[in-house]
């Protein structure tokens, strides 16, 4: 029992701190809301420290084999925690300007992080589902928080209803699998699958589980909510939704498909290939037609999800680590991309349209350069991080004998390069619409610069991060 508690110590610390923040925030006046902000960031960083410091050398199970701590969970948990801390720093000014700088934003986000940590550490369908619900519930509420906005209300309703249906489907699939395997534990399910003759019921359950996971990842054809939610919610909340939860969704895919159902690899590979090809093409093609940068990033996320799926589809350990590498790179790129949107927005002005970025190079050459790195990285231009992410995933697909699949991936990313470069053209060659200077606090400027440079630096020296992902699987 004591070792069990030791393994969940970071989660317990996070929960206790959230409760303390929740109570302290009640007594704070609006002027001193900064205390909540500082406490939240300190909590996230301390939890990340605890996660790293508390990591066992081998894979350890706790709470009747329902909670797992392995190298992968340590890396992904600490990345999620730090990314959310960065989201807080990026969005502070945006929230203050919009009278949105409330304690609830911080407590709900932190609860969402707790859900993600549980998902990342789940070794059991029940832990996975509860973590997922904890995370999703906070996101539904956060999208709806801007109550006076019609598009936010519409986005929240769509997200909530579709999300509830997806959760129901996921749960139904889990119940069918439980009926066959007679266990909720992923490792035991995998054993039961290898001896079970009831393939029909297993594939029936698998279809529903994939549906639920594909919805959370945002893979085509379950992607409809993404553009609306990304566009409808305040940019600070979009930044949160677009980054850390994708890590949790990747882990959900990995844990269920690889750790729980590798006995059905042939079945899930054939389903996921369709989702992956459709995501890469539909995401990239529809993105071309967007004039709103948040919707553009939403469609670009859909295409990145196709690549994340590609690594898992290969069914090899190297493929899984390539997917993990891609997920981490995607989160870094997405964080920087939305960071720029938050930077360009100011009180009473949302920099949501691509033309709002025209001539950004004349206003701030440095941040235009950061945006350039981000867009090049998303497009997969060498030597950025996104290039290596794409290369490693494509390479594993070729190694697994799926050459046509890799060719499709390359074709899709060439289509994608068009709309990324179009934004670059707007940044550098169009005339600015106004001459309002960019205003941002020093911490945000520094962090955003570091975020952008990290994509270039990790692109030039990708081996350390790649090795980390290879060791994690």
């Amino acid at each position: 029992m004591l070792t069990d508690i030791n393994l969940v110590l970071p989660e317990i610390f996070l929960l206790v701190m959230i409760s303390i923040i929740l109570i302290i925030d009640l007594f704070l006046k609006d002027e001193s809301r900064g205390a909540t902000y500082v406490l939240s960031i300190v909590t996230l960083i301390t939890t990340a420290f605890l996660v790293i410091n508390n990591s066992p050398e081998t894979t350890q199970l706790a709470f009747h084999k329902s909670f797992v701590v392995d190298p992968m969970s340590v890396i992904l948990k600490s990345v999620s925690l730090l990314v959310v801390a960065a989201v807080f720093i990026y969005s502070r000014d945006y929230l203050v300007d919009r009278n949105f700088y409330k304690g609830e934003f911080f407590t709900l986000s932190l609860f969402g992080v707790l859900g993600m940590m549980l998902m990342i550490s789940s070794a059991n369908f029940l832990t996975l589902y509860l973590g997922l619900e904890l995370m999703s519930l906070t996101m539904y509420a956060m999208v709806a928080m801007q109550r006076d906005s019609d598009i936010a209300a519409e986005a929240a309703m769509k997200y909530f209803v579709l999300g509830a249906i997806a959760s129901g489907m996921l749960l139904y699939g889990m119940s069918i699998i439980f009926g066959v395997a007679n266990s909720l534990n992923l490792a035991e399910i995998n054993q039961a699958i290898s001896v079970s003759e009831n393939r029909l019921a297993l594939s029936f359950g698998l279809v529903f589980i994939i549906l639920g996971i594909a919805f959370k990842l945002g893979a085509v054809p379950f992607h409809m909510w993404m553009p609306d939610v990304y566009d409808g919610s305040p940019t600070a909340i979009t930044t949160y939704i677009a980054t850390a939860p994708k890590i949790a969704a990747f882990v959900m895919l990995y844990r269920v498909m690889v750790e729980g159902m590798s006995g059905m690899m042939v079945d899930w590979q054939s389903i996921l290939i369709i989702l992956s090809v459709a995501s890469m093409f539909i995401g990239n093609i529809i993105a071309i037609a967007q004039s709103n940068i948040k919707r553009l990033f939403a469609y670009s996320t859909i295409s990145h999800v196709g690549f994340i799926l590609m690594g898992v589809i290969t069914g090899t350990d190297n493929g899984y680590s390539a997917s993990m590498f891609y997920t981490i790179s995607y989160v870094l790129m997405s964080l920087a991309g939305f960071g720029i949107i938050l930077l360009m927005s100011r009180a009473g002005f949302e920099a949501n349209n691509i033309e709002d970025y025209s001539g950004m190079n004349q206003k701030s050459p440095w941040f235009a350069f950061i945006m350039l790195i981000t867009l090049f990285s998303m497009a997969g231009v060498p030597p950025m991080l996104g290039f290596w992410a794409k290369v490693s995933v494509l390479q594993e697909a070729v190694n697994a004998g799926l050459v046509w699949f890799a060719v499709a991936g390359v074709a899709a990313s060439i289509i994608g390069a068009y709309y990324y470069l179009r934004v670059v053209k707007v940044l550098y060659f169009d005339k600015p619409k106004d001459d309002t200077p960019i205003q941002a606090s020093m911490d945000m400027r520094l962090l955003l610069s570091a975020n952008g440079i990290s994509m270039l630096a990790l692109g030039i020296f990708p081996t350390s991060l790649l090795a980390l992902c290879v060791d994690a699987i």
Partner: protein
Amino acid sequence: MELIIFYVFSSILVLSAIMMITVKNPVMAAFYLVLSFFATAPIWLLLEAEFLAVTLVLVYVGAVMVLFLFVVMMLDINIATLRKGFVKMLPIGVAAALTMLMSMIMVFNSGYFSIEKYAVPERHSADYNNTAELGQILYTEYLLHFEVAAVILLVAIIAAITLTHRRRANTKHQDIDKQVRVKSSERLKIVEVKAEKRK
């Protein structure tokens, strides 16, 4: 005897469930839902899940549905707008439902879920305590999940308050300090009005 009870209550359950989705009046639909909960409870009792059967009646019928009915009665639901697009969407809905039904029939008729494959569970003796067993497993094997479920409820409270609580500038509320410190001169204002002449 058990079979009779099962068939009686399951037919009530199926009928009330069908009525619930077909009646036009939302209040009636809520009542049919209550009836289907009532019909489910005895079936659970037959499965020796006494605690769940009792909770279903107490929590769902007693609390959740009462609140639900209250909300349904308070809201002005326009059935015509709710049914708009029903015919247009019907073919898609029917196609999805039929596909689902067909695959479910295939799965459950495949023979792997037949009675021969699963032994009939043994009946527990009369002193078997379902509630104690549940409590035992909830606080040992499922301790983590139990705690997380509590956290989810906390999040639900925070989310609900965030979304509904709104401090309006012109809300009328009592300020006891001000009430105590009030002086008669602030309460009573003597206005001299000139007497008008009678016409």
